[in-house]
Structures are given as C-alpha cells and as structure tokens.
C-alpha cells in the first residue's frame, strides 16, 4: 500500500504541476492572474475532440492544432481585453474570470455534456512498479511534465525571448528602458500560459472524460498551488504541488477519501496565515501585513 500510495502521490503531484505551471508563469512574467486558465484547459480538450471526432484529423495533429489555437485565443484575450485594464488587478481578475465563465458555459449551452466527450489514451498499457499497476498514460504525464519543465527552464535562460520574459518579470520599468515592449511580452506570456494549459489538458484529460465543471476544478487547483508555492515562482509551484499531491494521496489512503478535497484548501489557509506570499513568494507587501 505504501509503495502504491507514493507512486500515485508522485503522479498526482506531477498532474498538479502540469495544471498550475501555465497559470503561475503568466503571473510571474506579466503579473496577470489569468482566471480563464481553467476555461483554456477545457477549450483545448474540446477542440482536440472536435478535430478528432468530427473532422477525422489524426490525433497528434489535433493536439498540435488545439495547443496553437488555445495559445492564439490567449493572445487575443490579452490584446483585445486585458491590455485595456493592465495594471488594474481587480479588473484583470474580473475580465479573465468573465471570459472563462463565458467559454465554459458556452460549451455547456451547446450541449457538450455526456460520456462521448473523451480523448483516447496514447498507449493503452499498464506497467508494474513494484506491486502496483500504473497505466502508461500516467507515466507519460510524468515524462512530459519533466520534459516541459526542462524546456521551460532552457527557454527562460537561453533564449532572447525567455530572457526578455525574465527581464520584465524582474523589473518592468528597467526592461522598458532596454527596449522591451511590455505589452508584447505580456501578450506572449498569456499566450504561453494558455498553451501550457492546453498541453496539460491533452495529456491529463485521457485519464477520464471531458467535463465542463473540470474547468473550475483546474482553476481552483492552479490557484491553490500557485498561492501556496508563491505566485510567480516556478520552484514554488513544484514544491507546493509535491506537498499538496502527497498530502491528498496519503489523506485518501490513511484517513478518508472525503477529506481529500479540503487538503489543498487547508494548505492554502495555513500558508496565507503564516506566510502570505507563499513558500517561495516575493511579495513583501503581503508579508508586512502579518
């Protein structure tokens, strides 16, 4: 039981990392809390489904198109909505939440409800780790997450655009004096965040079926993990995901499954009371309040 719990706790944690990294990256670079993040996750899933089942596209092509499409929608959202309210935090939250709500409820209105809305797994096999069976899809989630984190690290450290992202994140005004266009960078960061949500959707959704309400769950998980880890800190997201993921699985196994859902919210509460900026957060003004 212990080995199985640890294995699935790692998988659970990685799923949380994948779900949260896009949200956290967008905030870290541009300071925008993208509350449409969960909607982008579901949008990518449904677009993939439509391309695969209605238009008969190959699965891999459907995934690639949906990732690009979702990233473009993210960019358009910034360009035509968020740019006008940039800097007004509450307006950004309300605008993105409204857009997210509209996207999710539009799918519900169109009748995208039912068991037929599901994505196939990439490889339908199970493997033994010790005495625990783990399906290949979950192993792929772990592998893709590792690859994604490495690629992101390389991107922000060794590409000019990635360095521009870091520059804007560190000090926007100084970055502006170096000729970095903050609106362009913000557009790209929101777009990248949306694209990461799409990547997360295409590897995680095949574990079950596509459900509109998952969009809200993804947003809550991403928000909780990002706040616990520290908004803007990728390392914080990874550590927080591991903490929450392990806590959830061990609670499920040794205490009771009905307590699992409150674990992340309880962790959030504790962090907000003790260290409001999160484990690796740098928002000093939050620290000074306690």
């Amino acid at each position: 039981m212990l080995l199985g719990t640890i294995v699935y706790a790692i998988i659970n944690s990685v799923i949380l990392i994948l779900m949260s990294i896009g949200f956290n990256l967008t905030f870290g670079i541009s300071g925008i809390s993208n509350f449409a993040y969960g909607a982008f996750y579901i949008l990518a899933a449904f677009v993939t489904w439509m391309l695969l089942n209605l238009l008969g596209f190959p699965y891999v092509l459907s995934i690639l198109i949906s990732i690009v499409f979702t990233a473009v929608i993210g960019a358009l959202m910034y360009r035509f909505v968020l740019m006008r309210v940039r800097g007004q935090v509450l307006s950004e939250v309300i605008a993105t939440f409204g857009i997210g709500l509209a996207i999710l409820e539009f799918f519900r209105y169109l009748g995208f409800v039912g068991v037929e809305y599901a994505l196939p797994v990439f490889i339908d096999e199970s493997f033994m780790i010790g005495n625990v069976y783990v399906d290949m899809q979950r192993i792929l989630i772990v592998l893709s997450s590792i690859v994604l984190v490495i690629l992101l690290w390389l991107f922000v450290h060794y590409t000019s655009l990635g360095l521009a992202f870091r520059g804007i994140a560190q000090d926007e005004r100084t970055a502006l004096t170096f000729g970095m266009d903050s609106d362009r960078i913000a557009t790209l960061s929101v777009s990248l965040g949306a694209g990461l949500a799409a990547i997360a959707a295409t590897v995680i959704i095949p574990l079950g079926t596509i459900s509109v309400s998952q969009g809200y769950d993804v947003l809550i998980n991403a928000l909780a993990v990002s706040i616990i880890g520290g908004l803007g800190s990728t390392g914080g997201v990874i550590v927080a995901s591991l903490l929450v993921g392990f806590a959830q699985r061990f609670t499920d196994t040794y205490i009771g499954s009905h307590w699992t859902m409150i674990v992340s919210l309880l962790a959030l509460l504790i962090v907000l009371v003790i260290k409001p900026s999160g484990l690796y957060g740098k928002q000093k003004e939050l620290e000074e309040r306690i």
Partner: protein
Amino acid sequence: MKKCICFLSVVLVFAFVLTSPFMTAYAADPIVIGVPTSTGFVEGKEGLAVVEMAVADINAAGGVKVGSENRMFKVESIDIRDAAPGVPVPEALMGIEKLILEKKPAALLIGPFRSEALLAAMDILTKYKVPLLGTIAMTPASEGKIKKEPDKYKYVFRTCLNAVYLVKYLVGTMSFINKEFGFNKVYIMHQDVAWARATADGMVKRYFEKAGWTVVGQESYPTGASDFSSALMKARSSGAQVILPIFDMPQSGTLVKQWKSMKVPALLAGFISPLAGPGAWKTFDKKIGGAVNCNFELGSAIASAKVPQSVEFLKAYEKKFGKPMEAGHGPGPTYESVYILKEAIERAGTLDPDSLVAEIQKTDRTGVMGRIKFDDGHQAVFGMDPKEAAVACVFQWNDKGERVNVFPEAIADAQIQLPAGLKAAK
C-alpha cells in the same frame, strides 16, 4: 350615410376586439410545463430533450383536452445547476422560484438532482401550489414529509425510483453473484451525496451484514473527485471480489479506466453514470467487458424486448436527435411524466393544482418503464415485473460491446457472467 358610419364602426370594433392581445391569448393559451433541472449534466440534458419530444408528439396529435378545448403544451426550462459541485442549495431554489413566478407553469417536471435541493424545494412548491413530477432526486425523505403532512406536500410526486428501490435491485444483483460465484467480499465506493450515501448504507445494513458478506472497505468521494487509485489499491490488497460503485458524477469515468488499468481482480457491479449508455463502449476503449450496471429505470438508455414501449421509445429518441440516449437515470420516467400530466389534466378537466394532484395520484398507466402507479408517499411503485410495476434494469457489458439485461428476471435475457481473468470462489 349614418347607417354606413355605424356599420363601419361596428366592423372596426369587432376587428379591434378579435385582434387584441387578450383575445389572441385566450384562443392559443398553451399549458406551460416547467423544467427546472441541471441541464448541463447528461441526465438533465436528455431529460429536457425527452420532454420536448413528448410535447412535440402530443401537440402534433392535437394537444391536451382541457374541459371542452384543446390546448398545446409549451416547455419552459431553467438550468438550476444544483448538480455542479459547490453550488449552494439556495441558488437552485432561486432558479425554481424564478421559473414559477415568470413562466407560471401548470406543473414542473424533472426537478433538482440533489435530494437536499428537492427537500428544500418542497416548501416552495407548496407555497405556489405547483405540482412536481420529479425524476432525478431519490431521497425517501421526501416521501416521509408527504406522509407526515399530506395536505401540505401533496404537490410533490416522484416517477423515478428512490434509494430504497435501488437498494432492492442491487440486493438482487449481489444475491445472484453470491449464489452463483460464491463471492462474499465487497468494497463499496460511493459519491458523497445523499442518494449514494443512503444506497451504500442501505446495502450494508439491509443486505451485506445479514447475508454474511464482508465489507472490506467503504469510501465516499466528494463530487468532482477524479483519482480513485487509493481505494482500488485497498480493494486489491483486501481481497475484494466485488466492487460496488455508486456514482452519478461525470468524473466517475476515471474510476472505470483506473479499474481496468490497475487490473483490479474484482467484478465491478453497481451504478456508474458514464457506463449507462451505449457510448461507453467507445469512450472506455472497449475495455469494459464484464462490468455490471444498474440503470435506474427501464427506458433510461436501456430497453427490453419484453417491454416493447421501451424499445420504441429509444428508437424514436435516436431518430429525433441523431444519437442514442446515454443517461441511465431520468429520461424514461421523464417521458412518462409528460403523459401522466396530460392524462391527469384531461381527467381533471382543469389546470387547478389541487384537482391535478388528485388525478395524478390516480395514475395507472403502462409505458416505457412498465406499469406506473403512485403509493401514498407519491412515489412510483417499482418492482420486479413490468406488468405489475415500474422496473429498473441491471445489465452487463459483454466483450462484444453489447449490453445484456441480467436482472430482474422478468426482463433478463441472460445471467451475469464472470469476465475473463476472474475465477468463481466456488
């Protein structure tokens, strides 16, 4: 000249009166059927679809005879979202009240998903005197309220089965499994909502403990949970021979996939909403052979050749909407509820709610679920023979992607088979 002016004036007055709104309204006043339910979930979505299908058929045949005139039905729906996780009950009640006040329905169909919402809505229905033929929420507590205060809560009926009847069907299934295969170790996994808790607890107290089964574990999951690995590992390590799942949330599809991928050597027998309809075969990559599922009513995504109306109903649905029905709870009784309402209106000759309620209580019709009558708790009576009562339908997926009816015996086409890889205990 004076006569001419007089004549023209009379013609103009008549023309005004005949084309004025109140005259137009009186001539074509439809009977409004309200449908307040969670239309964003498959049971609500397909339930609303069958209401529209039944209404279209009734209207095409001339409508409903109310006294001496024929009137058409008209459907007004509202998504009360009570099935979504985190939606508070007062939000759902606001939706019901809004529908009643704005659309003034003669009756409501389907109703809330969550029993908590239904129990709270009963007072609203009493306040506005609007009959409800509920077809989703399953708590027996509503019947208790009706029996305790029949005059106050007489407006509430339930056409679908309740948790008590569901327990009876599951007991029948488990008894067969025990007798045929010698299985007596069960792991129960259920959703943390009233109907599922009541069903799970009912199974433990009324059957498993008395029949000598060992309940090796029981887990409840909040709506929205999507990882069942811990329970499945516990089921395997404790030697469970049967897993009894009780879920209506869409995320429970993950349980089916995990059951297969983790190769848990136990028979899956219970109710998982995503397994109910024919689409499950493709959704779960054709790997659900052997799973046993109880659709709550015959006609809800499952039919029996022994009840021809159920077959005709599903064919008509697929023809009208272009795809098969997937919801294993709700559409069958919802379809019947439209006709129950129609017949009650015609017998009463009026839309007066108290008269309607009295006539609904006298219902005795045979339809897609079998024979429908209400008991003194305003609950449709369910049994084992469709000639005597309404029936649910337990079926098993075979390896060819077919759903084979296995219980009750009156509509069974075969017996439960053990899937490949599982051995009988005797």
